[in-house]
């Protein structure tokens, strides 16, 4: 039997986290996109984007790493799909800065030893799902609606900021995550900390700061009545999931709040078996919640 033709096709930049600490994000992204008949072809020989540290210590290196990835992505057809909020931010920032500064363009061209090729559209998965694929088709693809599940959508710092760079949604009051997960049948909550910083990579150098910031996020989601938090960033996921037990010990509060990647919930709704979505990799087990809601 001939496989069904893809409805859309993209080149795909997973980034380093999706091959290690966030492998469930990668697995669920591939599972979801396959279920939706959206093709993803990985960029050959991609390299680290520099993530959050590089641009703080060496802007030219950070821009060059991103420019090299954009050049490599030209080998694969389709706009560049990016899952990690930090990779997305770095790639879009590089395009923005190289588009407006001739000196930086010249320096990066020298570093790459090649003419710049950085104009391929870079799209976060949310953009692809909400706009290219569309919410109507997403609703039609739902096989197991997330009925009864109340989700706190957490944007963090990078998905919409700084203004004029990611162009994903409204900078101050985005709704794209809510629209996407509501299309899969979930309810969402309004809450105070949806765009607050979790502490990001200070998790290694200043863990006390991260514990405080992430505790505030968990407390806010709990107060709002959420069953779980949905994220699109491996660093946010790490701080809220991996650090959650430590936060509970520090604050004396019990959260037991599963932290899902958006693609895990969407893939579950699209009929991808739970066993293929990396739920076992999560530190706060989502199994009790998903069983209670009859989603597993």
């Amino acid at each position, binding site marked *: 039997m001939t496989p069904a033709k893809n409805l859309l096709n993209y080149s795909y930049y997973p980034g*380093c986290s999706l*091959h*290690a*600490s966030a*492998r469930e994000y990668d697995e669920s992204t591939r599972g979801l996109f396959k279920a939706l008949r959206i093709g993803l072809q990985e960029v050959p*020989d*991609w*390299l*680290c984007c520099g993530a959050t540290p590089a641009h703080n210590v*060496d802007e*030219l*290196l950070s821009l*060059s*790493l991103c420019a*090299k990835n954009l050049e490599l992505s030209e080998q694969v057809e389709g706009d560049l799909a990016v899952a990690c909020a930090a990779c997305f931010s770095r790639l879009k920032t590089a395009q923005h800065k190289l588009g407006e500064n001739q000196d930086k363009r010249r*320096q990066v061209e*020298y*570093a*790459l*030893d090649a003419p710049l090729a950085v104009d391929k559209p870079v799209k976060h998965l949310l953009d692809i799902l909400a706009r290219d694929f569309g919410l109507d088709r997403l609703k039609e693809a739902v096989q197991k609606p997330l009925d009864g599940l109340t989700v706190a959508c957490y944007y963090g710092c990078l998905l919409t900021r700084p203004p004029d760079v990611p162009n994903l949604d409204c900078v101050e009051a985005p709704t794209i995550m809510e629209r996407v997960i509501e299309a899969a049948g979930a309810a969402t909550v309004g809450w105070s900390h949806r765009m607050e910083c979790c502490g990001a990579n200070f998790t290694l150098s200043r863990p006390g700061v991260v514990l405080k910031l992430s505790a505030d996020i968990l407390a806010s989601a709990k107060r709002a009545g959420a069953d779980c938090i949905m994220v699109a960033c491996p660093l946010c996921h790490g701080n809220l999931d*991996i650090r959650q037990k*430590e936060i509970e010990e520090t604050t004396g509060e019990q959260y037991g709040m599963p932290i899902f990647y958006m693609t895990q919930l969407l893939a579950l709704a699209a009929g991808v078996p739970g066993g293929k979505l990396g739920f*076992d*990799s999560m*530190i706060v087990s989502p199994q009790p919640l998903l069983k209670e809601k009859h989603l597993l």
Partner: protein
Amino acid sequence: MLGPKLISKGKLKMFHKKNRNLTDIEKIFSRIEELRTKGEAP
């Protein structure tokens, strides 16, 4: 101790053992150094 738990869940790896395209990364580093040596980049 989070380390053993993270390793058991496949979340900790020696990134650079598997990191891709070290050739390009090293080339970018060395050409940036060249630019700086020549005083053509900050």
